[in-house]
């Protein structure tokens, strides 16, 4: 029997870490980190875990600490947000290329400036090319469930890549909601022990981690790292299937919500997917053929699967909660449109950048987007492709 609780997203992740009992947590103990290390440090202090908690002087050091621990053969975790993640960028690449399956809880918040502490995805989207796996969560339950699956995915011999479990800052991280927790014993059994094949301190086969890689070999290492990212898709599906057997909660690379026979659809990530589901429900109740796809895995990107799911939909709006400054749309849009290139029945597609710096996303915001998709179908042309939602003086769903 699962345990009925109510927890904030931060509490849920800290609780998952407690159940997992990792070897090391390296964390910067103040802002811009999250409440997660704060809650977790209480478990450490109370002796409820035997994790080595290393409070460091910066996020760069937090990740470096995790790299050292993981290279030595331990299981290392950290948590951060916003500018904290940005300060880790350099070492994120080191973790990924050294094939160290570190787990990072990312609470998505805007990157400065102007100074802002609220939710958007600019922090993790900025790290999308670092070689980390990225799973996104709609609510506290998914943040918890994804965290329980994280190490099984990251540490799998076909993958061996670090993983970032993302949830929306404040919107889910600080909101108390109901949650179903898994019993400690089941978590322990599911997550298992970390038994790396090779590690720094293995006396039968000592090795170096992170040395200089000369040009004649560098590219081969990059290709094998790229292959690991490709392999991750199947591993995510396998681990999720096993998780579903244990909990009854099913996860894929993305979730399709009322997509059967949908003529209009949105593609979205994170907490706003929940708000958008309500908009879809309301429109469906009026007989409108609308649906949504919520991406769970952004890295690896489910290119073929998403293309298949969107084939035949008449018009699609891809929602980006980060600007990207490409002058032609956000990162989710770029990937999604690429996934649809060459489809037999390619949808018309627009991009909305939305919800930046905590701009509230309402059911009406999403209904507004579906109305624009209707216009696009009616007119037979997309018009402006790269748009911004709920902006003064621009497109505003109004209140």
């Amino acid at each position, binding site marked *: 029997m699962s345990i009925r609780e109510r927890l904030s997203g931060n509490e849920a992740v800290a609780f998952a870490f407690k159940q997992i009992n990792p070897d090391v947590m390296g964390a910067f103990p103040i802002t811009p980190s999250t409440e997660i290390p704060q809650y977790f440090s209480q478990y450490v202090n109370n002796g409820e875990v035997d994790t080595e908690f290393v409070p460091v002087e910066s996020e760069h050091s937090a990740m470096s600490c995790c790299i050292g621990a993981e290279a030595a053969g331990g299981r290392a975790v950290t948590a951060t947000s916003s500018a904290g993640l940005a300060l880790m960028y350099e070492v994120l690449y080191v973790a990924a290329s050294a094939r160290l399956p570190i787990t990072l809880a990312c609470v998505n918040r805007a990157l400065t400036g102007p100074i802002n502490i609220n939710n958007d995805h600019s922090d993790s989207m900025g790290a999308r090319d670092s070689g980390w796996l990225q799973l996104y969560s709609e609510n506290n339950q998914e943040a918890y469930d994804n965290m329980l699956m994280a190490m099984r995915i990251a540490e799998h011999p076909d993958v061996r890549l670090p993983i970032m479990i993302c949830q929306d800052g404040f919107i889910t991280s*600080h909101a*108390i*909601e*109901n949650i179903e927790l898994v019993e400690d014993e089941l978590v322990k059994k599911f997550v298992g022990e970390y038994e790396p094949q090779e590690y720094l301190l293995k006396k039968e086969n000592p090795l170096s981690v992170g040395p200089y890689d000369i040009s004649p070999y560098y590219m081969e290492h990059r290709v094998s790292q790229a292959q690991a990212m490709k392999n991750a898709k199947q591993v995510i599906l396998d681990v999720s299937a096993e998780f579903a057997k244990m909990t009854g909660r099913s996860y894929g690379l993305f979730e399709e919500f009322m997509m059967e026979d949908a003529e209009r659809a949105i593609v979205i990530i994170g907490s706003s997917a929940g708000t958008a*589901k309500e908009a879809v429900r309301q429109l469906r109740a009026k007989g409108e053929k609308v649906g949504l796809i919520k991406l769970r895995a952004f890295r690896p990107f489910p290119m073929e699967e998403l293309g298949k799911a969107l084939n035949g939909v008449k018009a699609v709006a891809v929602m980006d909660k980060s600007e990207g400054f490409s002058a032609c749309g956000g990162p989710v849009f770029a990937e999604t449109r690429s996934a649809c290139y060459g489809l037999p029945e390619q949808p018309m597609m627009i991009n909305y950048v939305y919800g930046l710096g905590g701009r509230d996303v*309402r*059911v009406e915001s999403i209904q507004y987007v579906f109305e624009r998709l209707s216009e696009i179908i009616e007119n037979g042309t997309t018009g402006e492709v790269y748009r911004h939602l709920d902006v003064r003086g621009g497109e505003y769903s109004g209140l």
Partner: protein
Amino acid sequence: MAKMTEIRWHGRGGQGAKTAALLLADSAFNTGKYVQGFPEYGPERMGAPITAYNRISDERCTVHSNIYYPDYVVVVDVTLLSVVDVTKGLKPEGAIIINSGKDPEELRPLLNGYTGRVCTIDAGKISTEELGRNFPNTPMLGAVVKVSGLIDEEEFIEDMKGSFKHKFSTKPQVIEGNMKALIRSMKEVKGL
């Protein structure tokens, strides 16, 4: 869809409106409901107007936006009436609950023509008398439960007894005062 009750709290930073919203979520959760309790974060300063929210329902709510059309509005600091449009979007069949010793009809002129129920509770006075200090949280919580009928009153009182025992395990002397403040506010709230 199951009936959902949405509540918006207005307070000032440091007064505990956020804590009150989370306590209400706890209490509703303990009586079997699906709950959301969340604050709206801005530049955090003592005394600045802050907002917190609750959604309470028999089914899980997937919406993660702020609340624009609340069933109930709770004003923890009466001085906010002239600063914030507290009744904005408030449903006329709902109610506003204000921390004040005044009669509800005395405050109505400050509420931008709101036609629904206006309730007042002198949470400051109750708190000062029962706890010796101005902690308006507990009495406001009692008044919200009384006015909204969201949670069975007996169940609520029992649940709060348990919560206070847990919360104040290191200073049990304040448990009785909090319980008294809670029960008094449920009796003394005006405008029912």
